Each structure stands twice: as structure tokens, then as C-alpha cells.
């Protein structure tokens, strides 16, 4: 983990409310692994509000350039402030944070299940393991919420899309789409990142099909380094910190409430 002033070397608006930034931060890029995240400071000098940094997953790691790319959605005041930053600006970040993904030696066919803005860490994973057999299931509200498809194409990872409104791909839940495909041709491993209801459904599917796998979780964070115990989630082994014990957990380990 390092703290640095990263230079914004690329900024692209991917769609309404969706942003792509490439950040020059060699010390952090050097250490980064797929599934980890960075903490981005959202207040400028001279203001103490918003006070806390925002966790954003690493989308791409370019060690050669010494850069990291992120994709995020503006949902509140913090992400909106990041979106105001321009190419050439500096932004204070620290990272990489978290355990990241660790794939078992043998995984066979891997289903990546992304819900909305949960896609980015799965991309860094797929890019990191070009030899593995990934299939992406990517769900969103609408066609406009499904980002970076060209990049997935380039990577050669097949993808299946699902939207709530039917504007792209399957009309319905991404988990239903996965099930359909699974029934036709099974998977051996599943990794999911997205909203809680989706993760819960994925966990149920994993149980149903007895599949191993991993979930990447989100939580409100304060320190982002494991010190404050603020970001805990409930697991079968008690409370764990999402920031450093996660954000990636074994699929059977996470205990969803209700």
C-alpha cells in the first residue's frame, strides 16, 4: 500500500454518469493485483467535506506505463467530485487495498457475473489470466449501463448481456441468464461483483449447483486500511473487514442478512 498524488492521464465519459480515468501512479500499479481497489480522496485542499476517501476498484493495471484505470458511476457527492477532475489534474490516492482475487490452480469454466458498476474488478481479473476460460454475464438496468464491451471483445472473453428493461441482451436478471446457460453447459467456478441482491442470488445458485467461487463485496469504509473495523461484513466466521480481509470472499463464506 502506498499513498501518492496520481496524475490523471486519461479521462473519458463512458455515458451519462459513467467515467473512465487512467491514473499515473507507478508505485501503486507496481503492487496492484486484480480485485484490489484504491481509495480516492474526494475533497480538495482547504475543504474538509466530504471527509472520507472513496473506494474504487481497479479496472486495468498497466505496470509498464505505471498506471491504473478505474471506471465509476456518479452516485453521490463524492463520486461527482471525482468526476469534476480533468486530465492533467492530480488526485490523492492510496492503495492497492484488499486481498484481490486468487484463482485456484484448476478452475475449468469460470463464470464472471457482473451487476452494474461491479464489472471493473472482473475485467482486471480476466485480463490478468488470459489463459483461463472466462465467460462474462453482465447485467444492468439498461443498455447504457453496460460498459466497456469492446474491451471484453478485444480480450476474447465471450459475454452475455442482461438488462432489466430488455434494451440489450436478455430481458431479465443476469442470474436467470446465467442459469439458462449453465443448464445448457455447466460452469466450474463463479465470481461475482455487483449489488447485494444479485450477490445473494449468485450465492444461492452456487449452493444449488455446488459451485466454488468468490464474491467481491462493498461496504461503507472509513480508514480503508483495516484499522477502524468500520467496514465489516457478516461471514460464517464472524465479522470480517471488507477493506483488507476482502473485498473478495469465498462464495460460501458470506452471510447475507434476512
Amino acid at each position, binding site marked *: *500500500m502506498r*499513498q501518492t498524488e496520481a496524475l490523471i492521464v486519461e479521462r473519458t465519459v463512458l455515458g451519462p454518469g459513467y467515467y473512465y480515468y487512467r491514473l499515473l501512479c507507478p508505485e501503486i500499479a507496481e503492487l496492484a493485483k486484480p480485485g484490489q481497489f484504491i481509495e480516492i*480522496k474526494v475533497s480538495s485542499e482547504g475543504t474538509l467535506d466530504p*471527509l*472520507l476517501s472513496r473506494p474504487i476498484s481497479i479496472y486495468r493495471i498497466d505496470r509498464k506505463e505505471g498506471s491504473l484505470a478505474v471506471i465509476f458511476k456518479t452516485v453521490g457527492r463524492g463520486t461527482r467530485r471525482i468526476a469534476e477532475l480533468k486530465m492533467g489534474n492530480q488526485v490523492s490516492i492510496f492503495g492497492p487495498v484488499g486481498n484481490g482475487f486468487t484463482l485456484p490452480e484448476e478452475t475449468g469454466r469460470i463464470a464472471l457475473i457482473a451487476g452494474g458498476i461491479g464489472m471493473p474488478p472482473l475485467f482486471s481479473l480476466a485480463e490478468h489470466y488470459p489463459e483461463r476460460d472466462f465467460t462474462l454475464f453482465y447485467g444492468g438496468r439498461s443498455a447504457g449501463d453496460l460498459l466497456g464491451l469492446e474491451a471484453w471483445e478485444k480480450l476474447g472473453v465471450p459475454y452475455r448481456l442482461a438488462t432489466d428493461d430488455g434494451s440489450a441482451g436478455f430481458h431479465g436478471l443476469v442470474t436467470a441468464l446465467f442459469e439458462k446457460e449453465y443448464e445448457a453447459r455447466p460452469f466450474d467456478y463463479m465470481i461475482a461483483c455487483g449489488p447485494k441482491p444479485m450477490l445473494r442470488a449468485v450465492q444461492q445458485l452456487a449452493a444449488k449447483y455446488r459451485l466454488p467461487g468468490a464474491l467481491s463485496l462493498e461496504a461503507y469504509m472509513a480508514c480503508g*486500511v483495516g*484499522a477502524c473495523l468500520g467496514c465489516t461484513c457478516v461471514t460464517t466466521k464472524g465479522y470480517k473487514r471488507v477493506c483488507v480481509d476482502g473485498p473478495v470472499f469465498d462464495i460460501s463464506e458470506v452471510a447475507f442478512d434476512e
Partner: protein
Amino acid sequence: MNESMQVEIAGLTLKNPLLPASGTYGYGREYLPFFTPDLFGAVVTKGVSVTPWVGNPPPRVYETPSGMLNAIGLQNPGVERFIAEALPFLEPYRTPVIVNVVGKTIEDYVAVVERLNDFPVVSGYELNISCPNVKEGGIAFGTQPDCAFQVTAAVRKATRKPLIVKLSPNVTDITAIAKAVEEGGADAVSLINTLLGMAIDIRSRKPVLGNVVGGLSGPAVKPVALRMVYQVYKAISIPIIGMGGICSAADALEFIMAGATAVAIGTGMFHDPMQPQKILDGIREFLKDENIGSIAELKGIAHD
């Protein structure tokens, strides 16, 4: 240079007046990527209880204007695992270690202190008396002068190590509590702990925190913390460790001028993990600019 930063508190000599606020720095390990425990004048650990505490259900933290709420619920592995894991980690550093102690009964506090007394790495204790006193219907020890006195006096009897008592700000008269713990035998007080607050998610129409209420900290509370340090300085004669919203050298200096001998940073580290170093540098620079020989000279100067 360090001479000018040196302060004495509760019989301990600290090379500088900056401490981490309990509970924001874990047991020191997590911030190693940014700095070692030796950066601080002393380390103050996360609260330690006699048996493990699981803490509160999530969500446990939430951001508020220039501040944050936390309802960690004092999750900690208990004194035995603290001894097994945290003490060996802290041992090699040269900085004094102050163990923050939590309990639900007076006996709890005493048990932790007695268990730790023989470890030389433990330089002193900070009693967190904002914990609910289960024998008094869950009212926090630190909100009643007599309860505050009793727990202090009981722990005082149990140890000869420096004893700091950490006051709760959720009281009508903080000076009454400060006087009670001074009388109880405390060597120093630290203040403030968090202000009780809450937040509601208007979409779900429910309190945000799993525990409903939580503790407010960060720059938002600084004016309240500073006022309490100022008041307590006039009321007692033992030294004060001031905290609550410190995010800059100027903030730290305000607390010292209000009467604090040393200061602690908590939420400010979450705002920026490099803040402790910046604060120390900033204080040194201020002393130089203003031609002040020692930080101790500034203590309580706003009262003159």
C-alpha cells in the same frame, strides 16, 4: 529538534505531543505502509476488554458533513489475544504504549489492567469510560461523576502505571466528570470521545447504522472538543490529552493553547493517512516561525 517537541504526561516523557486516537489506529500494524508507531509520541491502542467483544452489526460507519459516525461497538479480540498478538508487534518500537481499556463492569476494567500490569511494553492505560455500565442499567460510566470516580479509583488501586481516563462529551458538565476522575486518582485525562449522533437513510426510511446511534467524530466536532479542553484545563490540575477533529497542525495547536499537553488524531488519519506526519512537521514549523523554544510553552496560553 525533538527537544522542542517533547512533553511530559502522566509520568511519561513523549518525544512529541501527537498520539493516535484509540480505535482509529488498531494496534498499530495497519498503518505501517504509511508510518511506524515510532512516529507518535506514544501509541494508544484500540480498546481491549477482558473477553472478546464481537461488536455491532454493520453498517458501522457513515460519513456526515465534515465528520463521520461510527458504531463499531468496541469489537476487540480480548486481552489474551491482545497479549498474544498486539504486544509482540508493538514491543520492538521505542514509543510508549498506552493500552485503551474497556469494560462493562468495574471488575472488567480492573481485570484487564491486572492482566497487563506485568508487561513492561505496556507503559500506561487509558480508560474508556464511555462504555455502558451494565450494573447501572447501561448508562455510560463517564456520564455520572460518581461512576466515573469509582471506576477510576478501582483501577488506580490495581496499577501503579500511568492512568489516563478518557472522558465522554455527552454530558451537561464535563468539568464535574474531570474533577471526579482526578479525585479518583487519574494521572491525566483525555478528551473528547465521540458525540452521540445518528443518520437516517431517507430512501429506506431507516437509521443508517446497524446500531441506530453512533459516535460523531472528525472536524465537525472540533469546536465542542476544544471548548471542553478549555473548560477542563481550568477545572483540574492533571494534564490533558486533547482530541476531536484534529486534521492539521493548526488544529493541534488550538488544543494545546486551550490547555492540552498532548493531542491525538483519529478521524483525521482517515481523511489523509499522511496527516500525522504533516501535523508534526507543521507544529515544528510553527515553533520555528514564532520563535518558540518548546511546545510546552504554548500549553494553555489562550487562558492568559
